């Protein structure tokens, strides 16, 4: 009666083997590595880049342990952190600004483990050191900015339509236009309603004054906020790339917050600086008179023609640009990738605000068949995003840039145009920084307390329940194995609270075995035969185990749902630990007991203390 069918034994063995394989990578430790990933979509992480990196490392007199290529980056491993730093500097110098060269730690686990997807757990910031920022986007000012743009647009439109108004102003998040008579007001109202469907318009008349008040429709407000958030995330991503962080996390949290996590970053002052920086966009004319190869070559040596400046396009092409600024990025309301209506070529559609549109129309009228340049300035360093030729005069503020562009490039350019500056100011509302020494300490104390606690429980269980106690301890060890394997498989982030969760789960998981063992003793005391006692013990304890674990599971779910950051990690471990503990305490320990006692037809006593 106490025998498992073959499939159950196989199930247990399979679970243990899988558990071992997936737990294994966590024990290999990590090697220092340098990760190179292209910043731009037209640059690929490919074999050519790999050989270039190999060459650079060799030239620097360093020996890489291995250079490997994956989907988005090339990673070279080194034996010491010293070599790693030297290699980073050498690669940075050789590859320039087009690539992110970041320090990273890679698992030392062998290739075959990586090949089957067995990867070590990802260590949280409190264990490996790093910076966590929670940034709040000031949505109010994004809406005010949007309203400011509308105010300008309305002013220009009314002028163009020759509708006389006596005053126009932005009042908070609304725009108010005043007219002398109702007829003018109604004409304007019809016009604004037609051109600006995003505005909710109301009229009010008092004391001989006729007013239109416009506010953003809820739907448009939501769109504006989403757009602002997305743009800020894009900007942050660009800036973080510059920090050279191997695995940054930048993601939206809630409606108006962004989480930025930079593992391994030590220089928090610099990180804050770069994240909080403002970049600007400028539109200028290309200095066509000096764009001949000779002048360009001269400019490269430092002899720049009067009134011009030398900048480079993203592909390294030099461009001489006039010093005079036509437009700044503030005039750009939006930029989206798309396609040319006639040729079907990939294009970037730019939407300028009223003032921008007027200036742009004038400039394009005067400069047909000449090139203009859109420049991005960050930290005083400029770069040409794109330098298209002006074909015709462009009015209305809707600009399309097309030609010699791939879809990806169109996407990149529009992103850059949008992300050049933040859509709305951001503020750090939460910061958690952990230094590297504390991270290492945390791993040690987390590991040690789990180990000592486990040892104490093991000793006690074996003394108290003798042979059956040994089974319980084996089951408990299997539980830890399953839990760690599961966390590794899910690539969960291990934090110190998570480690506390593992420890606590061990402490709680033993409950199931105690329940079973006590029950077996009781059945024996009641005069049952050993086999019947084992059978009844497992059978009767099962309901109780289930009940008692479900309540803890409920608490775990609540912690997960309402908890944030570290508490969530604890909750995940707690929930998974409960699930694995049910399996290991009931199925695994029963399997061992069956194996040991089940085969004996005549069983006189069980060693249960």
């Amino acid at each position, binding site marked *: 009666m106490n025998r498992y069918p073959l499939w159950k034994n196989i199930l247990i063995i399979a679970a243990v083997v899988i558990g071992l394989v997936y737990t294994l990578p966590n024990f290999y430790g990590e090697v220092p590595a340098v990760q190179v990933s292209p910043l731009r979509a037209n640059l690929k992480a490919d074999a050519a880049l790999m050989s270039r990196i190999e060459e650079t490392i060799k030239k620097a007199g360093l020996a890489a342990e291995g250079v490997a290529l994956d989907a988005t980056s090339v990673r070279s491993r080194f034996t010491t952190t010293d070599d790693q730093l030297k290699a980073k500097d050498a690669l940075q110098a050789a590859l320039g600004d087009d690539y992110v060269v970041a320090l990273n730690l890679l698992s030392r686990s062998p290739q075959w483990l990586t090949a089957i997807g067995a990867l070590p757990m990802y260590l949280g910031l409190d264990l490996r050191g790093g910076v966590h*920022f*929670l940034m*709040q986007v000031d949505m109010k000012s994004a809406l005010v900015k949007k309203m400011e743009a509308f105010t300008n647009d309305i002013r220009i439109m009314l002028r163009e339509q020759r509708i006389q108004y006596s005053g126009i102003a932005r009042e908070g998040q609304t725009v108010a236009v005043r007219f002398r008579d109702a007829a003018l007001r109604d004409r304007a109202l019809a016009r604004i309603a037609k051109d600006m469907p995003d505005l909710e318009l109301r009229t009010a008349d008092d004391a001989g004054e006729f007013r239109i008040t416009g506010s953003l429709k809820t739907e448009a407000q939501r769109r504006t906020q989403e757009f602002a958030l997305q743009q800020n995330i894009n900007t942050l991503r660009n800036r973080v790339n510059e920090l050279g962080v191997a695995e940054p996390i930048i993601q939206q949290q809630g409606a108006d917050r962004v989480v930025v996590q930079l593992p391994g970053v030590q220089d*928090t002052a610099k990180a*804050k600086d770069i994240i909080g920086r403002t970049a600007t966009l400028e539109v200028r004319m290309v200095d066509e008179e000096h764009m001949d190869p000779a002048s360009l070559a001269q400019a490269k040596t430092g002899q720049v023609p009067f009134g011009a400046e030398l900048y480079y396009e993203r592909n390294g092409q030099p461009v001489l640009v006039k010093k005079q600024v036509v437009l700044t990025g503030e005039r750009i309301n939006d930029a989206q990738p798309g396609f040319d209506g006639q040729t079907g070529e990939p294009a970037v559609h730019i939407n300028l605000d009223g003032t921008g549109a007027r200036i742009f129309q004038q400039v394009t009228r005067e400069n047909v068949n000449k090139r203009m340049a859109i420049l991005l300035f960050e930290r005083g360093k400029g770069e040409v995003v794109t330098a298209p030729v002006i074909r015709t005069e462009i009015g209305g503020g809707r600009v399309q840039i097309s030609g010699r562009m791939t879809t990806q490039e169109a996407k990149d350019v529009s992103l850059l145009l949008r992300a050049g500056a933040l859509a709305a100011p951001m*503020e*750090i*509302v*939460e*910061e*958690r*920084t*952990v*230094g590297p*020494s*504390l991270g290492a300490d*945390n791993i040690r*104390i987390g590991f040690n*307390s789990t180990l*000592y*606690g*486990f040892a*104490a*429980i093991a000793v*006690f269980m074996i*003394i*108290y329940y003798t042979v059956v106690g040994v089974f319980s301890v084996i089951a408990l060890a299997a539980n830890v194995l399953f839990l760690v394997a599961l966390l590794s498989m899910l690539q969960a982030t291990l934090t*110190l*609270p998570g480690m*506390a969760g593992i*420890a*606590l789960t*061990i*402490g*709680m998981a*033993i*409950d199931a075995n*105690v*329940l079973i063992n*006590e029950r077996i003793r*009781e059945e024996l005391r009641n005069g049952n035969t050993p086999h019947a006692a084992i059978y009844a013990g497992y*059978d*009767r304890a099962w309901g*109780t185990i289930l*009940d*008692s674990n479900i*309540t*803890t599971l*409920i*608490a775990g779910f*609540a*912690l997960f*749902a*309402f*908890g944030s950051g*570290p*508490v969530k990690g*604890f*909750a995940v471990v*707690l929930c998974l630990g409960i699930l694995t503990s049910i399996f290991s305490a009931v199925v695994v320990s029963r399997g061992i007991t069956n194996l040991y006692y089940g085969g004996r037809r005549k069983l006189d006593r069980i060693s249960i203390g």
Partner: protein
Amino acid sequence: MEFFRIKKDIPFMRHARVFNLISLVTFLVAVGSLAVQGLNLGVDFTGGTVMEVSYKQPPQLEGIRGTLVKIGLTEASVQNFGTARDVLIRLPVKEGVTSAKLSEQVLAELRKAQPDVEMRRVEFVGPQVGKELFESGALALLFVCIGIVAYLALRFEWKFGMAAIIANLHDVIIIVGVFSIFQWEFSLPVLAAVLAILGYSVNESVVVFDRVRECFRSRKYRHTPVPQVLDAAITQTMSRTVITHGSTQMMVLAMLFFGGETLFYFALALTIGIMFGIYSSVLVASPIVMYLGVSRDDLIRLDKKPESESGAVV
């Protein structure tokens, strides 16, 4: 080895009033302390900045305080953390100061005074975020309570659900109360510990109730009055109760002693919770079930196949 060889059922229920009195007194002390001096809420809930810095040599705390006062941080608290070389600096929220920059400023000043200072940890929580963390913590507590009552009501009967949750909320109040009495810092991990304990010590009530149900169904207790059935159930599960909690406590003690300052209060909350968990879920929950007037019919009626199961008992 066996700790508990109890031949006769211990008459717990006869002393129910004594336990009730103990509970009531501790409960009132806890509530009183919470009302009078409140909780020493951590930076997670109040907002503010906490910095942990480490020196090669034990530093003079007065010197650090002086440095902070010099840059206008008069309300800063400076204390040792774990060892004499580690120092914890707490800076309250200041209106109008972009607090994110504050830690950099402090570190720069400290470095000027003594170059061997090393930053171990910075935690800055804005007041708004702190408020939200507090709210979501309270929501989590509420959700756990509702979830557990609902589950127990489904699995047993509403009387058991009520009894278990009252007993365990009484635990929660006592843990929080102890933190208030000693003015220990109540942080996010401590809250997590409290919620975990809530789920965990309900286990205890579940195990006892399970046994109560089984006893009600068993022929042996057919004519036994309810209080004696409860006594029998508690006595029968006592061995398991003590051993399980002892094992969990061993693990928690390991965290308490080897877990460093970071896990100390987390483990401390768990310790108090486990201690009171044993007591309350057995000796508070069971009397409540009794007072609520639980009867044999309450449980038998819900059971679908009482005969086949009770057949295995004797």
